[in-house]
């Protein structure tokens, strides 16, 4: 499918992204990639944290956080591509009126401020729906807008801890085996995708009825909604799940095994007795089939440690890619445990376009994360690089909203457009 000529799923929808950091910006870029016109609302008065700090693209970029650095942040570019950008200082008295006028021509407002921030700025749902009765208003507070912990400060790893996810990450239930940390901002992405689902559902409802609504996504609750199995084991049996490493309740072998190379590993999972036989033959160890310790899944589970050690003597002599080929040819699940470099080079992930090239006016060619789903006819695309600060002020204020040039100039001088 040719991304240049394909139509877009969300053509005609306009979304205002008040978000910073991860969750709201990620939700908004996913919608923008799929065709919505997303306007990121920023301000020089308080830059998105991902614009701050010394850029990784070069040690010699002039200026610092008040200089050129904010335009050279590839992670920011990834999370804000496909959007237009305007600068409005929402704390300025004249900003509220300006943004309300913009809301009148928009379909969705999304933010991930702490509870109360948008309300105090005069930009809460009740204020904005008076401007646009069918508005979809999406908030992504960490713990929600009510409850005793509504005002806690968090980042994604804190939410993973609160939600019970971190508590399941480790090699066993022993204290020294506990890990608890995921390198990825798991709960930010979970919140972002839930925001996309809820926004689209609300837009469908609006299409059918003309009715808008407010959507509150507590990122903590969105994360717990993925843990029904763990909740039910406690509710049904009083059992408090503990980390189990890479073991699986019924599949043995099931784990990440060390391969030839530096920190090289391969994931192997055997789901049935047929696959176990195929595995032993493919590994050129048919004698494992005759070993009573491994006679069936029950025996293999009892002798898991011995089995894993034996498997490692085999995997150790091959690269992870070799093991994948050998086992997949025999119909057994195996994949290299990939790091970013492996993923960047892997032929399958390249074919799947998990990284996309994008041209940024300051940085030049960049590799950014791709689009997490493939729609055959409306695939979406990176529509434009992330906006420079205030890049689209002219388009939004003059063309879209029809403000006279003198008025725009006055708002700039007053510090509302800043």
């Amino acid at each position: 499918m040719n991304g240049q000529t394909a139509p877009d799923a969300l053509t005609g929808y306009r979304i205002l992204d008040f978000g910073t950091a991860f969750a709201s910006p990620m939700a908004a870029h996913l919608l923008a990639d799929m065709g919505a016109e997303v306007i990121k609302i920023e301000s020089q008065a308080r830059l998105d944290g991902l614009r701050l700090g010394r850029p990784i693209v070069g040690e010699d970029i002039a200026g610092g956080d008040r200089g050129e650095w904010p335009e050279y942040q590839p992670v920011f570019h990834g999370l804000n591509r496909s959007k237009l950008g305007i600068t409005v200082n929402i704390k300025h008295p004249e900003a509220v009126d300006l943004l309300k006028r913009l809301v009148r021509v928009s379909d969705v407002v999304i933010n991930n401020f702490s509870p109360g921030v948008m309300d105090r700025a005069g930009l809460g749902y009740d204020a904005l729906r008076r401007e646009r009765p069918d508005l979809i208003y999406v908030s992504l507070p960490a713990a929600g807008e009510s409850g005793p912990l509504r005002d806690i400060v968090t980042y994604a790893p804190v939410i993973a801890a609160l939600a019970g996810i971190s508590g399941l990450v480790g090699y066993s239930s022993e204290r020294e085996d506990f890990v608890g940390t995921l390198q990825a901002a798991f709960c930010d992405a979970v919140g972002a995708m839930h925001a996309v689902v809820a926004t689209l559902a609300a837009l469908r409802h609006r299409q059918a009825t003309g009715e808008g609504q407010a959507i509150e996504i507590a990122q903590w609750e969105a994360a717990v909604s993925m843990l029904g199995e763990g909740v039910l084991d406690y509710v049904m049996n009083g059992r408090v799940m503990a980390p189990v490493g890479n073991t699986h309740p019924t599949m043995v072998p099931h784990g990440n095994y060390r391969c030839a190379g530096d920190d090289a590993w391969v994931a192997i999972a055997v789901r049935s007795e047929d696959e176990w036989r195929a595995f032993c033959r493919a590994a050129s160890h048919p004698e494992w089939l005759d070993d009573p310790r491994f006679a069936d899944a029950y025996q293999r589970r009892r002798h898991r440690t011995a089995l894993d050690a034996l498997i490692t003597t085999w995997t150790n002599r091959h690269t992870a890619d070799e093991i994948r080929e050998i086992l997949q040819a025999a119909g057994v699940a195996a994949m290299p445990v990939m790091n970013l470099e492996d993923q960047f080079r892997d032929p399958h992930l390249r074919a799947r376009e998990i990284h996309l090239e994008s041209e940024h006016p300051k940085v030049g060619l960049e590799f950014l994360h791709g689009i997490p789903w493939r729609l055959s006819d409306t695939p979406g695309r990176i529509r434009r690089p992330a906006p420079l600060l205030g890049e689209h002020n002219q388009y939004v204020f003059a063309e879209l909203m029809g403000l006279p040039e003198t008025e725009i100039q006055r708002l700039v001088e007053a510090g509302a457009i800043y």
Partner: protein
Amino acid sequence: MNAGALRTLRVIDYSTSIAAAAAGKMLADLGAEVLKVEPPRTGDPARYHGPFPDDTPDPERSGLFLYLNANKRGITLDPEPPTGGNLLHCLLAEADVFLHNRPPAEAAAMRLEDSRLRDQHPHLIVAAVTPYGSSGPYANDRGVDLTACAAGGVSIGTGFRERPPLTLPLSLGAHFASIATAAAVLLATFARDATGYGQFVDVSETDVQAILLAGYGIPTYIYRGVTGIRAGRHMNLGLYPNAVFECHDGFICIDAPQLAQWNRLLEVMGNPAWVQDPRYRDRRQITEQYPHEVDGLMAPWLMAHGKAEVFDETQAQRIPTGPVNTMQDVVNDAHLRARQFFTTIEREDTGPLTVPGAPYRLSKTPWAIRRPAPRLGEHNEEIYAGRFGVSREELLFLWQTGVI
């Protein structure tokens, strides 16, 4: 009760995986009419997964199945015999979405490839969520959650550096992909509004992780060669402290990158003498070179406290921290209880079961549990007789011969 935002969307959920079933659940919980199609006699594999009440196995009381299939109606069908195939096409003619989890070769062998289905039903959105996606060199490779987390780039970053990488717990990779699947299906409905045509929605459990979890870090690999490897309880990048720390009764996550947050944390800890040492000023350097050394300096204060105390004292100073909660802590959490987050699913044969509630709160069309998960074949008569005029005698025959 409100009918839900997606009340006009009709979904056939022909799935045997957590990722696809959970995507169907998300749509059903928002009001879509989702019909779960299970293999005759055995039913969905999730019926054998558990947890079971009192650890008593029973395919009608598997927690995973009950959780993932609430709000769905359920029928049994084997689409391979011609009569089964005809019935499937009767269902598809009335549906908006066909959701399944078959890799392309398997789908083709079952005559369920998207091109065939959409030739016959041009309006239909066909969605497949598979371990590696429906195109590319590994499309037909065997896969489970473990292997998708491996290729997705999450495992390599999880665990201790000298020990094996860890996969995501509790099939979270599949749950993660399910959200993308629900989103992608809804996106396709917007395209269909404009064109009248359905399309193929291809979601890969690997891709979703590789893009939204590992992928935004690709610039750090390109520019700094950072490949995202694991660092135990610490993050491998960023400003210390960003890790999980031990207290006397458990663990607490502390993530305080801003200088003001770090200074407030030092104050809460009583401004220990070591903070004067220049070695502990460059917090990026601490993360990358000697986090364990500073862990040791923080340990006396942390081990003198419980995780709830550390949480209260630090949050009072607006420092981002959170206790590492167990499932028991989560179910009994006062905040989640005050928000009435948990909800109940109930069937005669299980009694009320507490389950996680709404991941999002829509003011006009709330997320809601409207019906419990179906018993195996519970709605065969309603669907086959009620909609397609199959007689009771024919239904019996189809059941006896394993078609339904």
